[in-house]
């Protein structure tokens, strides 16, 4: 675990905080934050109308101020880190022997410190809102706690984005993307506060039942934390991995976390299904298997289009690992072979889970095809990984430039998917094309070309492929597995003579 000394001595934390304090933007921001909150609480709030709602209004305004502050910190963090990354500054940090974990931990702690600083400036005002009435103490407490809770994954996500590209152009796209996501989240937060009987009161009810040790509430909190912690760690290690993808990696940790996330997701669902969901709308299965589908793609995008052998450091760590670590390395083998293996394991487990539900269905009243429909998405993943991207990996020069490969494949998935969806949308909206052979062709292509469009078309109940979609997907999936095995063989041959000469 982390020792306090390690945090106080963390070089990255020291640097980022020093830069933050010396930054003039921050100073201006901080002062305006305090003045804003002060001005609102002394001038605006007392003179506005409805006395019972006064506290709520004041509270919302402070929340918005805090939210803006959070965003500005995120933006400043993104700016600094993406600049450092694009200018190879992280290499110099690596040279010092600082571990990747320490760098990310330092960055995260610095962002959290900055956030908490603003937070503690604002929180007194929030409790001031309490005295204005209209709010209960637990709501305020719950809302402030939730903000802290969500700031961790938010800042990790920001770090991840800032480390995801060395090119300024993609960095710009990332920035726009971040902006959109954050605005979206902002609206969500606002609606949370402004809509009467909002989830906020739900939160306060939930906290109340937690405080009375209500078993259901405790269970939900436990499940939430299981996923919360795994997700935070996953984001954390993906960040570490992004810093240094050519001479070091955190492949083992990411694969392990993805796998446990995958397992706990299925297990939790199985547990919940037994009690609550049986007999309800079977499209709940989409909710279960689409995250699995996404996890498989994440694994593929991170480690399938990657160098065949992991970096030297990792190979040596693997060689020196003993005991449980050795076992972990065996199970979540870094490198292309391990990725293949893990994808196949995960598919097998998904198939088992589908089978389990299918057996349970005999007694239920729903159409079991909906289950197969949802489960078959996951089976199709090997096909999308292998065709066409995986086949390119068999060409030596393309294999060596796997960053380009990765970018190409992801662009292909997104562009072809979006293109097909638009074409299909146009055809459907014009009566002439609907149900024409051409429309059928577009639907078929959507099914086989891109993981984005296949999801979309899967939801289209009117499509002629809707009924047999799972059969097509299953067939493609099996073909994909055969392809993947062939590709693996070919890549191994291409890389055969490389390994022995180095270590």
């Amino acid at each position, binding site marked *: 675990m982390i020792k306090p000394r390690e945090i106080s*001595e*963390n*070089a*990255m934390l*020291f*640097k980022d905080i*020093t*830069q*933050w304090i*010396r*930054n003039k933007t921050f100073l201006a921001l901080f002062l305006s934050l305090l003045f804003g909150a002060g001005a609102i609480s002394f001038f605006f709030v007392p003179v506005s109308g409805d006395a019972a709602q006064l506290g709520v209004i004041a509270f919302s305004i402070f929340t918005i101020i805090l939210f803006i502050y959070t965003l500005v910190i995120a933006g400043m963090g993104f700016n*600094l880190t993406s*600049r*450092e990354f694009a*200018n*190879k*500054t992280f*290499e*110099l*940090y*690596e*040279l*010092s*022997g*600082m571990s990747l974990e320490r760098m990310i931990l330092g960055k995260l702690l610095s962002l959290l410190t900055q956030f908490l600083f603003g937070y503690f400036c604002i929180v007194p005002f929030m409790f001031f809102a309490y005295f204005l009435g209209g709010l209960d103490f637990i709501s305020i407490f719950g809302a402030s706690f939730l903000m802290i809770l969500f700031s961790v994954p938010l800042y990790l996500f920001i770090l991840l984005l800032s480390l995801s590209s060395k090119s300024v152009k993609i960095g710009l796209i990332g920035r726009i993307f971040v902006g959109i996501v954050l605005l979206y989240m902002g609206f969500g937060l606002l609606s949370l506060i402004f809509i009467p009987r909002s989830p906020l009161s739900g939160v306060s009810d939930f906290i109340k039942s937690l405080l009375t040790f209500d078993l259901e509430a405790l269970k939900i909190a436990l499940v939430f934390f299981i996923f919360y912690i795994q997700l935070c760690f996953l984001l954390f290690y993906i960040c570490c991995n992004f810093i240094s993808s*050519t*001479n070091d990696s955190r492949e083992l940790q990411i694969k392990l976390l993805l796998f446990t996330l995958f397992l706990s997701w299925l297990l939790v669902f199985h547990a919940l299904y037994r009690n609550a969901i049986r007999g309800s709308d079977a499209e709940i299965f989409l909710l279960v298997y689409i995250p699995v589908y996404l996890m498989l793609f994440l694994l593929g995008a991170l480690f399938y289009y990657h160098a065949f052998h992991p*970096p*030297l*450091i990792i*190979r*040596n760590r693997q060689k020196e690992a003993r005991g449980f670590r050795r076992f972990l390395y065996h199970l979540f083998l870094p490198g292309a072979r391990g990725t293949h293996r893990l994808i196949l394991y995960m598919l097998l487990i998904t198939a088992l889970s589908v089978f389990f539900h299918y057996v349970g269905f005999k007694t239920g009243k729903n159409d079991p095809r909906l289950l197969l429909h949802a489960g078959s998405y996951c089976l199709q993943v090997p096909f999308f990984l292998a065709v066409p991207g995986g086949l390119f990996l068999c060409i030596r*020069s393309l294999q*060596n*430039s796997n960053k380009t490969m990765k970018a190409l494949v992801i662009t292909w998935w997104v562009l072809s998917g979006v293109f097909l969806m638009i074409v299909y949308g146009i055809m459907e909206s014009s009566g002439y094309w609907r149900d024409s052979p051409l429309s059928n062709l577009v639907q078929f292509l959507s099914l086989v070309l891109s993981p984005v469009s296949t999801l979309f078309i899967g939801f289209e109940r009117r499509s002629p492929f809707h009924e047999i979609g799972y059969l097509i997907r299953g067939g493609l999936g099996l073909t994909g597995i055969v392809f993947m095995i062939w590709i693996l063989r070919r890549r191994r041959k291409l890389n055969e003579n*490389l390994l022995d*000469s*180095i*270590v």
Partner: protein
Amino acid sequence: MLKVDNLTKDFPKVRAVDNLSFELQKGRICGFVGPNGAGKTTAMRIIATLDDPTFGKVYVSDKSIAERPYDIRRIIGFMPDHYGVYPDLSVLDYLEFYARAYEIPSSSRKRRIEQIMNFTGLDKIAEKDVETLSKGMRQRLNLGRALINDPQLLIMDEPAAGLDPRARVELRYLIKQLAEQGKTIFVSSHILTELGEICDDILIIDKGKKVAFGDVNEIQKSMQKTFEISVKLLEAPQIQGLERFLMERPGISNIRIKNHDSIIFTFSKDIAEIPPIMREMTSQGFSVIEFKPQMMTMEDVFIQITEGEF
């Protein structure tokens, strides 16, 4: 101190380093010279554990970079050809940050930073923003960072690039002082003369391949044996005959005909061997009207070796 064995690095389109092998002894300064794109940066980054080699092995203090990269990072200093970005950070904070990054205990950190600042002359600008420093000052800071862990091996990638003559002299002085402290220094440049005076060894590469390696004086001596001789004939038709005559001699290479009546060739033997050649030419009936031997400098040899690259 540093041992490189058959180091090879492939990029998608080029082989940047090709079977490079050499060994450096402790306390010596080795110049690493080659034209642009020769593979100097690539080789240095691999030695500094920043990139993986495609083939080959590298040992620093008998530790393999493949097996003990983290140990090696603690005993080397690498000064790359870029600085990184550090907005809103002062020189002092910058050094403090790297001292923490290298896990120098807090008790000795302050003293270490002072030493570094005194040595590199940064003490006068301790409070200045790193981003506002001049090129020369930045290079000093870069050196200071590389020295903060008191490395045994210092790798410098084109440290003199972009410096004015005065700063170059100062840099050379600092390098010399570091070598006197017992540090091994591996320093690259694409200009040979820039390093000639301070180096003990020299390693020349071109297109990733080793061209020459060894003690600078010995290489110089062997190069001093190299002359470029130009001969002019009165009767131009004899030129082919002279070319054939030269081709049969030992120690003669790189024969070129110029302006139909002149011939230039490289002669790599002792100076005492020149008069006999001249005598033989005239006795064979060649109408020599000009015979001009010229001793080649190291720079000339270097340019000749890496011809066409500039």
